[in-house]
């Protein structure tokens, strides 16, 4: 052991003197638990990394960081460079393949969960899935490992769940004989807060704005947006199953069996085609269910001439009902209505032209 390492080990031992004090051992365990209870903003982590990488490229920092590593010729760096080269190659192939093939949902596999599922949603980072059952919110990672279980109010029906954009909360609807309420549950602490009490008017669909400030909902036959941190509630239009685009500029909804695009700022409505349950995949692509074709259709609704691209899910799955994607649109879950009371969930990947 070198002198430096020995010195470090001495410091390590000294630093842990207090941990060996039995009178405060419980307090230290408590502090550690408290530390782990502080949620990390993983969405910020992802977004900020992209920003920093862009800035590094501008500064030429990437090149600078690589040069000394090459001089050292460490195995770690060689592996990193090789991985990067492979990654770039995979991305290029994917881009070329995607450009040639158009939007598609692929690699679908059933999610291994036995409970009776009412609804489900994919986390914004695509790494977790929240399941709404009659009595619990169940949080799983995408490998099928259960992370948390949050009890729901007894003697209430529940009907919709939606991840918040930061991924630390999930909104859901509970309905009893007196009222229909929207709650937001902290997925890691379990605390729940009431967002909206609709009285005896049923709420049936939930969709967060990307800044997390609003929930777009279907209240009876109307589309409303509800503030998630105040009592403000704004009626948008007549319609069902609203979905707000990532920029917040457009709301897709169903109106009399047709998908419409509402521009809140410009006060415009554009008809897209026959269908239901619209869902934005990213700022460009919107997916909805065409009950006549029994398939999901992808469209770019902002183009003048709207081309409908069938995703072919009805060939792969029985009775697909809803599609939810991660923020980057690359991971998806498909909810299938196996029968009146049974829902199954499939995980997959998607690509967009």
């Amino acid at each position: 052991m070198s002198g430096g390492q020995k010195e470090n080990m001495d410091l390590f031992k000294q630093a842990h003197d207090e941990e060996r004090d039995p009178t405060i051992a419980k307090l230290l365990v408590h502090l550690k638990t408290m530390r782990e209870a502080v949620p990390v903003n993983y969405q910020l982590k992802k977004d900020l990394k992209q920003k920093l990488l862009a800035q590094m490229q501008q500064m030429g920092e990437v090149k600078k960081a690589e040069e000394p590593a090459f001089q050292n010729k460490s195995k770690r760096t060689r592996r990193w460079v090789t991985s990067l080269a492979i990654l770039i190659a995979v991305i290029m192939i994917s881009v070329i393949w995607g450009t040639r093939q158009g939007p598609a949902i692929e690699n679908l596999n059933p999610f291994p969960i036995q409970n009776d599922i009412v609804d489900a949603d994919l986390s914004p980072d695509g790494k977790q899935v929240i399941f709404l059952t009659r009595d619990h919110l169940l949080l799983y990672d995408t490998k099928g490992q259960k992370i948390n279980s949050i009890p729901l109010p007894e003697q209430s029906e529940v009907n919709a769940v939606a991840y918040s954009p930061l991924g630390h909360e999930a909104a859901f609807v509970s309905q009893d004989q007196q009222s229909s309420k929207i709650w937001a549950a902290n997925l890691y602490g379990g605390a729940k807060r009431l967002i909206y009490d609709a009285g005896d008017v049923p709420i049936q669909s939930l969709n967060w704005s990307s800044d997390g400030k609003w929930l777009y909902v279907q209240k009876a036959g109307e589309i409303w947006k509800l503030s998630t941190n105040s009592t403000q509630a704004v009626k948008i239009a007549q319609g069902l199953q609203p979905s707000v685009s990532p920029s917040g500029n457009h709301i897709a909804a169903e109106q009399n069996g047709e998908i419409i695009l509402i521009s809140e700022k410009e006060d415009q409505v554009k008809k897209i085609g026959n269908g239901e349950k619209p869902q934005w995949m990213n700022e460009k692509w919107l997916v909805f269910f065409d009950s006549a074709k029994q398939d999901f259709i992808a469209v770019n609704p902002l183009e003048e001439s709207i081309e409908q691209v069938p995703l072919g899910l009805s060939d792969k799955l029985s009775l697909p009902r809803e599609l939810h994607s991660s923020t980057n649109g690359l991971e998806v879950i498909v909810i299938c209505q196996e029968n009146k009371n049974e829902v199954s969930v499939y995980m997959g990947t998607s690509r967009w032209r």
Partner: protein
Amino acid sequence: MGMPVKKERTAEDPAMFQRESYENRDFSELYDEYFDRINRYLRSRVHNMWDADDLTTVVFMKALEKFHQYDRRNLFASWIFRIAHNTFIDYLRKVKEYPMEPGEWMNGSHEDHDDTWQPEKNLLNDEQIQFLHKKLEQLTQDQRDVLSLRYFGDLKISQVAEVLGKTESSVKMISHRGLRQLQKLYEMEGQG
């Protein structure tokens, strides 16, 4: 707790000493490792989580800007936490407030929470965290700095000393007294 599982290197990990003699990772790798700790540290100290997230962004932007000044023979943890702590101090000066306002930590205002609906018993709830905050508020500023860096930033004594510009013995003393005081406060409330 059901936090997303990611193994972080901590002060309790002796293997890290093998690696830290010379830091040869690039900024991107260091960012991946340290984001969680910096974000948690700032969220534990700042009035609300939105400000904490803004400060986290500021810390890493500053770090990238000054990364060429970072001496790779020194610990990155001390360097980045010094930036984080100084950013936090600047923030306090600007807003003229002190950290850890009880009830407005982590999840926004206390009024946002539904007190009528108790969470599952075995899960942590905001009440415990707010309780800890109230108790930390009763410590001295030095004690809060040391305990926050040590137990929320997960730094070693030597690293806390570097960040705060104090000697290790001084930090150990402050840490020891802070913990004792905190223990007493917990015992007084019957939660020790």
